[in-house]
């Protein structure tokens, strides 16, 4: 390396631009836990929030959001977005419970994969803005599922394996958490160690440059959308296991929190920058925030306001863009 010599001590403790969001969000998680603990100590006299059971339970609930957010991050890194998440989750869950038996989980994943493939083809080959194309696909999936179920919650139940993956425990550790961990490690390896991962960052920074550098940009975009759809399908399958059945609108509550988790974790909404660790911490932050607010019996109105304010304040601290001057 021919770069200027640096003082090793100062460079070690200086935060890079990508580290700042992660450290800040982690700090904010501690603040949430501290405030919640003070509240429970004051009202109940116990520090419920700091018990391992509580934390593990929160992580189990967070796994569903975390898996969705992992897929969403791949798409956002490309500079795109996937608004078809809600009905991909519901479709994965409904088809998995409909088929049942040993094929339930593969079918749930497959439905997500097909939706992702359609999204990817529309965005990469037809060049339709992802914002509007995935919105249309979401509407079509909703239509298909309403036609399939008759507009009611399907009578079919989740298989035992689905329920085990969602609520089971091994040595006290929720299985859902392990599934999330496996997904996380896979996504992290994909982003850091593979050509596809590097290509995703390159496309997010400037697709034309990536194309000229020989990256098969269309195939990479399709791959990312497929993975995003498949992870949404997986999350839907697990959610169906968690509540023992699929129901209408079960994915609606996951779209905006997933985007928020990715962005709070420092991934740039226009793509090209961000680390998976940030998304992981963003998910934990959102799950804990929701949980603490419900422990405090905050009404829905107050929750929405706090939720929005937190996103804006976090971004004001570290997500500010540069002024366009040329």
């Amino acid at each position, binding site marked *: 390396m021919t770069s200027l010599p640096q003082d090793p001590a100062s460079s070690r403790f200086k935060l890079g631009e990508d580290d700042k969001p992660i450290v800040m969000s982690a700090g904010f998680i501690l603040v949430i836990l501290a405030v919640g603990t003070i509240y429970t100590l004051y009202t109940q006299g116990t520090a419920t929030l700091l018990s391992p059971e509580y934390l593990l339970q929160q992580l189990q609930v967070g796994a569903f959001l975390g898996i969705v957010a992992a897929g969403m991050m791949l798409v956002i890194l490309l500079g795109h977005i996937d608004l078809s998440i809600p009905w991909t989750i519901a479709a994965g869950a409904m088809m998995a419970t409909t088929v049942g038996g040993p094929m339930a989980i593969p079918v749930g994943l497959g439905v997500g994969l097909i939706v992702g493939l359609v999204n990817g083809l529309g965005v990469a080959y037809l060049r339709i803005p992802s914002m509007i194309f995935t919105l*249309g696909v979401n509407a079509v999936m909703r239509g298909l599922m309403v036609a399939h179920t008759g507009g009611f919650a399907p009578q079919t139940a989740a298989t035992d394996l689905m329920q085990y993956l969602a609520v089971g425990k091994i040595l006290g550790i929720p299985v859902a958490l392990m599934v999330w961990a496996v997904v996380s490690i896979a996504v992290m390896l994909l982003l850091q160690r593979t050509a596809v991962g590097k290509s995703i960052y390159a496309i997010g920074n400037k697709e034309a440059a990536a*194309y000229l550098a020989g990256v098969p940009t269309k195939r990479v975009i399709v791959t990312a959308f497929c993975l995003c759809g498949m992870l949404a399908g997986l999350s839907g399958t697990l959610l169906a296991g968690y509540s023992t059945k699929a129901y209408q609108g079960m994915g609606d509550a996951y779209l905006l929190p997933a985007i928020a988790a990715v962005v709070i974790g420092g991934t740039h909404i226009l793509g090209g920058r961000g680390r998976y660790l940030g998304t992981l911490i963003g998910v934990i932050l959102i799950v804990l925030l929701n949980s603490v607010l419900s422990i405090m019996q905050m009404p829905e*109105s107050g929750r929405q*306001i706090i939720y*929005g304010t937190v996103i804006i304040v976090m971004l004001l601290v570290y997500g*500010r*863009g540069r002024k366009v001057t*040329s």
Partner: protein
Amino acid sequence: MNDIRVRLSQNAALLTAIAIFILSYVFYNMNHPRGFSVAVLIQNSNEVFTLAMVAMAQTVPVLMGGLDLSVGAIMTLVNTIASHLLNGSPLQIALGMVISLAAGAACGFVNGCIVVYGRIQPIIATLATGAIFLGLALFLRPSPGGNVDDDLSWAATNDLYEIAATYGYAQNGEAAWFQPISWIPVPLVLLVLVAVLVWLPFARSVTGRTVYAVGSGEGAAYMSGLPIDRAKIAAFTLGGFFAGIGGLYLTLQTSSGNADIPQAGAYTLNSIAAVVIGGTSLLGGVGTAIGSIFGALILRTISFNFRIFEIDPLMQPLFEGVVLLAAVSLGAFRVLRVKNTLELFR
């Protein structure tokens, strides 16, 4: 002659939207069991107005190259505010309407300030403010309800004759000069008034041109010395104002306020679809709010058609989805015309 051809080609998307709307609406009326009637027209225009306003609200930030995910939330917030204020003496009602519209504009102004001074991407900033606005709406109306002046509600959602008859203008609507126009639905009149009195002057002002310029190329706009910050804040404020009109009308139409979160989301998503169908580019710089009105009209006319053909209600969402997807996929023909692959990456 050449000038006309240039103008036509520049507005091809808008003209296509108008043509599709006219075709589908004529088709609807030809197949309507009772044929064209003023009662049906009034009902249709009532159902269209709010979405048309929210679509116009979405257009302004989109032209600037942004996106406003809070338009549905602003509409809902203004709906809940207006459901508390639209009663009492005429003066109180008028004041309530002004406050409601001002609240909508204020929400947009907040969005603009966060985007300009906070330098946060519009899509994520409005995602967050949308949550805040919905929270405020839930605070104002934890459960649906409201107290809205019946006369106003009746007059605003019918034809011009009912306004005159309710408030005693033009000899209670019986004046001879009034007859040729007395059948026109009020929402259509309001729609034209908003487009002509608010949108057109804005689009022709320096601020309005700057909104287009920012959407085409922010760097170039900056180098040309255009008032970028002012244009961005104005774009979001005007968007909030339009969404506020939509919320106010929704209050008059339903005579109540309802902090309905799924409804707010549906309006936001439909507004994006209406904007795209109306010929506005999501990349910014190209399009008009007039196009978005026709986009909203097309979306609603499609649902009207479902109603008269008695399509299985369970199949309706699927048809709507397929039509929406097909409509947005029309833009894909651009790919066939591109001669240099690099032009695709924009």
